[in-house]
């Protein structure tokens, strides 16, 4: 079974909701996860943030939809950790 354990996203978002509200709302949609948000650049109406999301089994589509729902936009996926926990079977 393949599970996503960690994603690091470069996100552009409006100032509102602020970082705390943004991470909290995202956390509500990602149970049993740890979210770290750090602001990397601030503009007049927007800010760029780096989101580090770690969990046992992350649903990327859900994360993406939640970010977009809050008005954010994912610019790039900067880092991922994916685990394959199924047993290896050699067919040769």
């Amino acid at each position, binding site marked *: 079974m393949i599970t996503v354990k960690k994603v690091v996203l470069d996100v*552009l978002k*409006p100032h*509102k*909701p602020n970082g705390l*509200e943004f991470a909290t709302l995202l956390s509500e949609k990602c149970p049993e996860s740890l979210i770290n948000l750090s602001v990397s650049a601030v*503009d*007049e*109406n*927007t800010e760029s943030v780096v989101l580090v999301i770690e969990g046992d089994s992350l649903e990327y589509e859900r994360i993406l939809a939640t970010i*977009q*729902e*809050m*008005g954010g*936009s994912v610019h790039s996926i900067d880092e991922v950790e994916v685990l394959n926990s199924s047993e290896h079977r050699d067919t040769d």
Partner: protein
Amino acid sequence: MFRQLITSLDLTESHGIVRRYFVVNGFDGALTMLGLIVGFYMSEHVELNVIISACLGAAVALAVSGVSSAYVSEKAEKQKELRELEQAMIENLDETIHGRATRVMPLFVALVNGLSPFLVSLLILSPLWAASFSIALPLPPLQMAFGIALVIMFAFGVYLGRISGINWFWAGFRVMLIALVTGAIIVMLNQ
């Protein structure tokens, strides 16, 4: 629904606008009713149902005016803010919490702006209705309605005083004084 409203209020930072509209139009409603009541009091032999109809007509007009004017102006303002944000994000935000707030907030602000004078007016008119249903009152209906209008205006002043952090009694008294001066002007014009 309630949570969406709170989120929309936070996103658009509309708490102050809603508060202002509530007080400003509520004040309008109270002063309009007070003016009508003093005017009818100065006139002789006006039937109670005529007074109620005239005041109710004014209350409905204030409500409709409040809802429509606030909706049109707030809608334009919020759409402008959304377009500016969309330009910064280089994305369409209609289906986000920002887009929903742009649709919800003008409606909410308009309802507050319209219902505030309407409910205040109904409260001031309540002694007239009570009298029309032959319910015993401690004072004649017009004097009692005048008293309620003064109390409501004093309450608006107290509320504004609490917001601005000034003495609540002085703030309330100042607003009530405006009502008394308005009444005095109407009395003088009718002499």
